[in-house]
């Protein structure tokens, strides 16, 4: 396999890059939804980020990526593995293809063993492999509804429960869902939209110079992947350190009451249903502060993250051509405008 494209070499797309970094800093923000045209670097960015995240240490041979520090007592692999047998692996990024079956996602009876050896065994699915990493769904809007329901349920509970074909298995499955799609081809149900933590809208760069940069870098990468990745080694290292530092810092970031109040005000003004919006807004703002190496959330963090955290939670207005982004920005200006300049 060739090395993936360096995250630091992606031109523009700042909002997407930021959302992905925030989800790495604090996975509890929830998934990231990326909507945009084809060929704008959606999947490149996801793969690129995961390859630059700090490695995770897993029990060797465990298909569930269990942490050796906290082995799952129900996992036969962790129990069988001799103590201390662990290894470092890259943060997993599992791509979920369209048309995938439920069996492949949640896992199923291991047919091979059932039929040839007469054993009842569980064959872990994609959810097990994505544990402690990313689950990437290209064209999430075209995925069958019952699969999406299932994914979001597991993502929210952090556990995959399988009850089928005489199997009764549960295993941890904590991952960040990154969904991408082209909104012209189909929409997500509002209930599902709301379950994603952040959403970003991307397009190809409008500026010719940026577009040329994209092509130049991509061409250089295609020509010599290893060499190109190496030329970005320093920037990649800096990025990794920044994320590691923020991961360590995020638990200490405090949120002043004034900021909390503004967040609530913002959500009410926008009519975002439910409390999920506020929660995500606060978590994202905290992660944002941590990335900034600050220990206190500022109004500016809130303003910066509000479009990503809220735009997919508004009631849709079929005639509003400008879209939800403009509405969020208007409201952010109205609610936070005074505070931002103060």
């Amino acid at each position, binding site marked *: 396999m060739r090395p993936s494209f360096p995250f630091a070499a992606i031109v523009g797309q700042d909002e997407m890059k930021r959302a992905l970094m925030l989800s790495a800093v604090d996975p509890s923000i929830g998934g990231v939804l990326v909507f945009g045209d084809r060929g704008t670097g959606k999947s490149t960015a996801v793969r690129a980020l995961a390859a630059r995240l700090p490695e995770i240490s897993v029990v060797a041979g465990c298909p569930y990526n269990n942490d050796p520090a906290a082995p799952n007592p129900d996992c036969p692999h962790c129990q069988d593995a001799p103590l201390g047998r662990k290894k470092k692996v890259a943060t997993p990024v599992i791509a979920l293809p369209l048309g995938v079956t439920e069996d492949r996602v949640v896992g199923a009876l291991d047919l091979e063993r059932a039929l040839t050896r007469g054993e009842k065994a569980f064959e872990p699915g994609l959810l097990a492999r994505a544990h402690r990493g990313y689950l990437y769904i290209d064209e999430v*809007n075209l995925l069958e*509804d019952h699969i999406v329901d299932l994914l979001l349920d597991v993502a929210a509970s952090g556990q995959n429960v399988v009850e089928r074909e005489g199997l009764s298995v549960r295993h941890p499955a904590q991952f960040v869902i990154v969904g991408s799609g082209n909104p012209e081809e189909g929409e997500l149900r509002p209930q599902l939209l709301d379950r994603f933590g952040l959403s970003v809208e991307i397009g190809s760069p409008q500026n010719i110079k940026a577009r040329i940069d994209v092509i130049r870098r991509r061409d250089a990468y295609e020509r010599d992947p290893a060499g190109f990745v190496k030329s970005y080694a320093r920037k990649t290292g800096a990025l990794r350190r920044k994320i590691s530092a923020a991961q360590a810092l995020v638990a200490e970031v405090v949120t002043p009451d004034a900021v909390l109040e503004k967040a609530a005000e913002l959500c009410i003004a926008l009519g975002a249903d439910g409390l999920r919006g506020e929660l995500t807004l606060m978590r994202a703002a905290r992660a944002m502060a941590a990335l900034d190496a600050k220990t206190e959330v500022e109004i500016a963090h809130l303003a910066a993250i509000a479009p990503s955290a809220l735009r997919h939670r508004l009631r849709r207005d*079929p005639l509003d051509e400008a879209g939800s982004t403009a509405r969020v920005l208007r409201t952010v200006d109205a609610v936070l405008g005074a505070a931002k300049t103060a």
Partner: protein
Amino acid sequence: MTGPDPISDALLAAQILGVGSRLGGLALRARAGPLRSAYLTYLRDIAAAPIRRLPPGIDDARLLGGLDLAEALSTGRPVHARGLLDEVGAGTLILPMAERAASGLAARIGAALDAGAGFSVVALDEGVEAEEHCPAALTDRLALHLTLEGLRARPLPDAPAPEVLGHARRLLAAMPPTPPEAFVEAAAALGIASMRAPLLALEVARGAAAIAGRDNVAAEDAALAARLVLAPRATSLPPADETQPAPEPPAPSAPDDAEKTQDPTPSDGIPAEVLLEAARASLPPDVLAKLRAGAAAARGSPGSRGGGAGPGGHRRGRPQGRPPGDPRGPHRLDLVATLRTAAPWQPLRRKLFADPPAHILISKSDIRVRRHRQRRERLALFLVDASGSTAMGRLAEAKGAIELLLAEAYVRRDHVALIAMRGAAAETLLPPTRSLVQTKRRLAALPGGGGTPLASGLEAALTLALGARRRGRDPVLVVLTDGKANIARDGRPGRAAARADAEEMARVLRGAALPTLLIDTSPRPQRPAAELAAALDATYLPLPRADARGIGQSVGALMAAP
């Protein structure tokens, strides 16, 4: 000036595909016929590596590799089979009937291409209608887009000798990097959003240069790339009356004036105009109209809408027997049925072994799967204008017509929903239901009077219809109105604003491609209702000419259509 000959372009494309790398492949739009056969033979002659044909209905196990069920059962140990994507190696994969390819298949092939697999894909798109086309997830990754439609068959020349192609490959490998500016600018001017297009065009131009025996890209190579890669993807035409001054002498310090993005002088000497000119020349004159129509169709076509509404939902619905099958496909294994099938054969099978194993002997033919069939339910959505103007004239008649329709819907076990337009805003009197009694009661109790909030009514209908679609129902909209809107979407009275809002909402509804019937309830057929029907792309039926039976027939036809 006559444009370049499409067939010789196609032949060059085949050679470029054989020489170049990282091109993804070729999307060929053509019906089966002598010309296509000859062209495929030509492709086959050029290809150095194996060519495999991919059946459109291929399952995952065969595509990506997996357990070889028949082998595993007969030998009693796991036997893995390689997938077609592995087997093809650096060869060519031919995908016939690409317009019928499932989006899942396209996504998997696309993912393999993204991961750097060395094969190229030849997608044979046999679509007849504009909205029938190969999934964009795949075509976006294929560099060359060709159409052989409307071309007369003629004998094709022999493919170039392997030594010629080998020489071109060596030239390509030694070619210095090509500056991408012109390609990027041309792609942007043609309204191509995907950043893959200029990159692929760049590779195609380099391949073309190598085939022509050049060691660097010349203007004609770039023009060829524009015709083969950029023009077919164009979504807008660059202004034709572009009166650019002659290219200025290239300034070496170009990158720092980022504002001058219109500057048509890239540093490599091939102006973007060359590409644009080539792309423009190869576009048929009516292309923009076609592009727009295509885009609209793509947005509204039922095949492209999201979620599990597709007919392939095998997991829900009523069980449909337990046929033999492969449990790794879309169907699930029925363990009990499988064992039941295998049981009677056990004594016989055991006799085949000198030392029979302890476990049950199951062969592939025993395996039974569960299959479900989901009956697509229909939803008849009635949007009834109960305003003063209708109440005066025909509300009673409209109610009668609806009752007849309801009876018919009841027989077919369709769902029915009722929205009334009356007063300041539309009101959903009845969310989708199968209860005929309730519907009749609500309908009878519906008083007339007030304004006509047409926009608000259409919006409510749209919301309900989309919701029904997400649940896997086929909604059909029946609008009964005289089309005289007088309440705007925000609830304020005013004819002009109300009409503008209604028109705009009708446009949105039209985009949802909802089968619609508009019944004009005004005493005489009138302009507003007919105009609204046109805006909705609805079947127009004036009530005076339609007795209840006629309406029933129209709705029946509408519902049977999908």
